[in-house]
């Protein structure tokens, strides 16, 4: 079989990443003292899925690590071993290794590090610990733990792939030479992988790699031909089954089972038929191996009933049986399996084979991913979604243009046009919202990593911290989610490092020993608000001010708390007494602020000494749309991001002062702000308009506040951001462009760059470069 597996790689990468994330979050939730069996099962399942996929796609290094991981997990879930924190740590480490390996594979490389061996050894050591024999202990194959590194070596033997050779003698089977067997071939192919063997004259021959019983095959064949002409034989060479992608995931079990007691073999004797009925029904079965694995596997493991089945007599069909050692002792639902999928009683001789049923009633099968044939979600490239968003944006603009040109018509005589237009408006708005929502993802995608971050950081600092997540379902743009991760990471680590006090100090302060960090996300108006708060020591105003003085950062005479808190965003500012590898180098907070501002967001701090700190990040819902104020300069319209605007002022002449060599400043209250004249920066004439004719907008830039002089404030808009760089180049002072209702292009101003431009304009050295000089 030579299917090009590489086309499925991306699917594997995505799914493996999901499984890893799931595994990690489960591990973090796991309570070692009272481990929930369902949870252990779920962790095992995640590890197992990764292993199956990795084996199938030939990523043997990942398969090796997961194999060791799984061995230990398996013993945990069988309650042969008690989970310990040490194990959880080892699992998390293994997860990290897997992530690194996955990342390496994604780039086409290989992750090689001594860490892999370390983690593997550690896991092995843990899983080699004394067995506390459980009632259902299935002996593990010794070599599975003894030589985990070599699992790739015997992949072929390990894989549980009963294969059958089907021979049909045309004549004996009562088939004419021209009878089509397409239907049969299709039916067989549904069972598993079907490969035509060399067909001699008058004889048809296939090799079927599928975990089915002979009876099942015969059933199918009976429909089309006479049993006399049919030979179905098990295929001896297990290596041949290697090719089947679907079954890599059985590896571990087989290992355990082949070496195993008759007990195991019996299990599936009964379970076999009915159980595999499920596989066939599983929607994924014809499709990708990973999908299939999930659906089938999810149903099986977790069957307590299987235990009872062990009591049943051995039956023939060993191959079929073997796979089921795997499912034994799992709690869950054979009852359900049997009753739903196999109305006929199990064919085994002891007809109290109903024994599996009680298991089903005992416990509800845990909620699982419904193997609903993948119709629950589809993977679409971001590019396609973006294209859709662009097109819808165009539609909205086109509508606005239409509406504008129609507005001159008499509404009475053109009623149908107006009706049509309003319908169009409604629909396109709905469409826009629907399309936007495609890009929306719950913020839990970022939040979910923090339990781990908090755990590791707190442990390395010997602090006790509890993390609480609130509003994880809040949705925001995918692009924002990705860019939010780093700043949040920084803030959380900062909170643990600087905010939360060591347990001793906390006790002394009368606070609970365990500090609390809350990550909260919510919608507020058109914004997303993400909050990182802790109940730690809070910011120390005096220390911040002292530090500012030391660093030479200008502070006003009697600064408000807000201003003082903003100091920590100054570059190079750190009040940490010692630099740790977590924080304290003072490079972080200004980067955090810059990142947030790049997303058109704002960051605010609230702090109470001794009570804690709260950092609030406000972000627009999406990167694609900007809330802005349109301002006019001569006959050009510019968009000023609303987040940058503090207030607007009707200026008076005496508010403007000239400082020689430094341009003009604008006085607001006690403060003198640099005056940025949009007209001077953007006009070709470099004209200087009198201040009274315009309006001054006070804006926040990364160098502090500034006064921006424009001709007029026009209106408040939500605009779709377009890049100028697509077809042109970066323009200074402009962050992008948008299309206004009348179809014209308006440039979106970047106040930080305007500030820089203004400074250059002011200094005489650069004066010849002034606008207009180019002509």
């Amino acid at each position, binding site marked *: 079989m030579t299917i090009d597996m590489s086309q499925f790689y991306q699917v594997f990468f995505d799914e493996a990443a999901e499984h890893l994330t799931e595994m990690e979050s489960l591990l973090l939730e796991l309570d070692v003292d009272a481990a929930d069996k369902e949870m252990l099962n779920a962790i095992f399942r995640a590890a197992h899925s990764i292993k199956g996929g990795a084996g199938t796609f030939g990523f043997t290094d990942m398969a090796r690590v997961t194999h060791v991981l799984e061995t230990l997990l398996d013993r945990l879930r069988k309650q042969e071993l008690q989970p310990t924190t040490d194990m959880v740590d080892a699992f998390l480490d293994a997860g990290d290794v897997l992530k690194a390996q996955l990342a390496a594979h994604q780039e086409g490389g290989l992750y090689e590090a001594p860490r892999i061996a370390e983690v593997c050894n550690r896991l092995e050591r843990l899983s080699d610990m004394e067995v506390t024999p459980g009632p259902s202990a299935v002996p593990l194959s010794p070599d599975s733990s003894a030589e985990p590194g070599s699992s790739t070596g015997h992949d072929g033997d390990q894989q549980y792939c009963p294969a059958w050779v089907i021979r049909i003698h045309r004549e004996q089977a009562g088939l004419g030479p021209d009878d089509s067997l397409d239907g049969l071939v299709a039916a067989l192919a549904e069972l598993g992988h079907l490969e035509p063997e060399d067909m001699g004259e008058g004889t048809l021959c296939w090799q079927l790699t599928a975990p089915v019983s002979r009876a099942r095959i015969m059933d199918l064949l009976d429909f089309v031909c006479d049993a006399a002409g049919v030979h179905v034989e098990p295929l001896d060479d297990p290596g041949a089954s290697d090719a089947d992608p679907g079954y890599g995931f059985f590896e571990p079990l087989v290992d355990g089972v082949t070496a195993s007691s008759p007990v195991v073999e019996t299990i599936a004797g009964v379970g076999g038929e009915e159980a595999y009925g499920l596989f066939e029904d599983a929607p994924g079965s014809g499709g990708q191996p990973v999908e299939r694995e999930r659906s089938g596997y999810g149903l099986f493991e977790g069957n307590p009933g299987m235990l009872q089945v062990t009591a049943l007599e051995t039956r023939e069909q060993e191959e079929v049986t073997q796979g089921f050692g795997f499912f034994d002792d799992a709690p869950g639902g054979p009852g359900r399996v049997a009753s739903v999928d196999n109305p006929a009683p199990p064919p085994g001789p002891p007809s109290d084979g109903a024994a599996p049923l009680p298991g089903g009633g005992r416990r509800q099968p845990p909620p699982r991913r419904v193997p609903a044939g993948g119709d629950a979600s589809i993977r679409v490239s971001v590019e396609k979604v973006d294209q859709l968003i*662009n*097109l819808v944006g165009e539609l909205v603009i086109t509508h606005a243009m239409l509406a504008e040109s129609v507005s001159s018509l008499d509404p009475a005589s053109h009623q149908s046009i107006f009706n049509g237009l309003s319908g169009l408006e409604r629909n396109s708005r709905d469409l826009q919202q629907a399309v936007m929502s495609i890009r929306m993802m719950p913020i839990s995608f970022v939040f979910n990593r923090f339990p781990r971050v908090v755990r590791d950081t707190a442990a390395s600092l010997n602090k006790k911290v509890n993390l609480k997540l609130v509003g994880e379902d809040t949705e925001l743009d995918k692009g924002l989610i990705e860019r939010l991760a780093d700043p949040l990471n920084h803030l959380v680590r900062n909170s643990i490092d600087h905010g939360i006090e060591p347990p001793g100090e906390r006790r002394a302060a009368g606070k609970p020993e365990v500090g609390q960090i809350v990550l909260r996300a919510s919608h507020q108006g058109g914004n997303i608000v993400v909050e990182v708060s802790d109940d730690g020591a809070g910011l120390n105003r005096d220390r911040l001010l002292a530090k500012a003085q030391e660093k030479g950062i200008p502070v006003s005479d009697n600064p408000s708390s807000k201003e003082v808190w903003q100091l920590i965003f100054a570059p190079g500012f750190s009040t940490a007494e010692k630099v740790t590898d977590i924080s304290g180098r003072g490079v972080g907070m200004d980067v955090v602020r810059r990142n947030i501002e790049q997303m058109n967001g704002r960051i605010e701090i609230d702090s109470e000494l001794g009570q804690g700190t709260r950092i609030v990040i406000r972000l627009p819902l999406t990167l694609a749309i900007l809330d802005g104020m349109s301002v006019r300069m001569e006959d050009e319209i510019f968009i000023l991001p609303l987040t940058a605007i503090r207030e607007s002022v009707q200026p008076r002449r005496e508010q403007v002062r000239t400082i020689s060599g430094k341009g003009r400043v604008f006085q607001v209250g006690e403060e003198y702000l640099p005056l940025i004249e949009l007209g001077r920066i953007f006009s070709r004439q470099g004209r200087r308009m009198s201040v009274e004719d315009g309006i001054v907008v006070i804006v926040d830039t990364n160098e502090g506040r500034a006064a921006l002089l424009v001709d007029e404030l026009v209106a408040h808009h939500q605009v779709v951001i377009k890049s100028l760089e697509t077809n*042109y180049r970066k*323009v200074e002072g*402009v962050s992008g*462009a948008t299309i206004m209702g009348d179809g014209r292009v308006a440039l979106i101003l970047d106040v930080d760059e305007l500030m820089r431009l203004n400074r250059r304009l002011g200094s005489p050295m650069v004066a010849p470069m002034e606008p207009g000089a*180019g002509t």
Partner: protein
Amino acid sequence: MTETARGKAVISSDESREYLTFTLGDEEYGIDILNVQEIRGYDAVTKIANSPDFIKGVINMRGVIVPIIDMRLKFHLGTVEYNQFTVVIILNIGGRVVGMVVDGVSDVIALKPEQIHPAPEFGALLDTAYIEGLATLEERMVIVVDIEKLMSSGEMGLVDQVQSGSV
């Protein structure tokens, strides 16, 4: 850039290629028609600050922001006026869309490579580096321009300098 130009020449060595010709002042220029996306009239443009004067600004072309350059200003061809006859050739150069204002669009002609002769060192508004050659068509002389090379040159200022090497 020279690489691509040469590559093109090799491919087309025995086939004739089509060129769109346009006039600038008294001269007639030809550009590879495959670089032409469409021809349209002149719309109101949004000016871009601090750009050379021949970059008129940007327009919205069905949602795409397209810079417009005026070749007449670029080559100092006297007074230019914008009216309903002003023509903009929208070029697509390596995926980048650029509008080019010219005096007029005249024809689409097919030229065989042997019809294009090397250009002498002078005589055109353009630097010879951007000229593929000269072609004679009936009584007219057409200056065949390597428009890709011209538009991505640093001289036009259409692309960031860092990028211009790779475009």
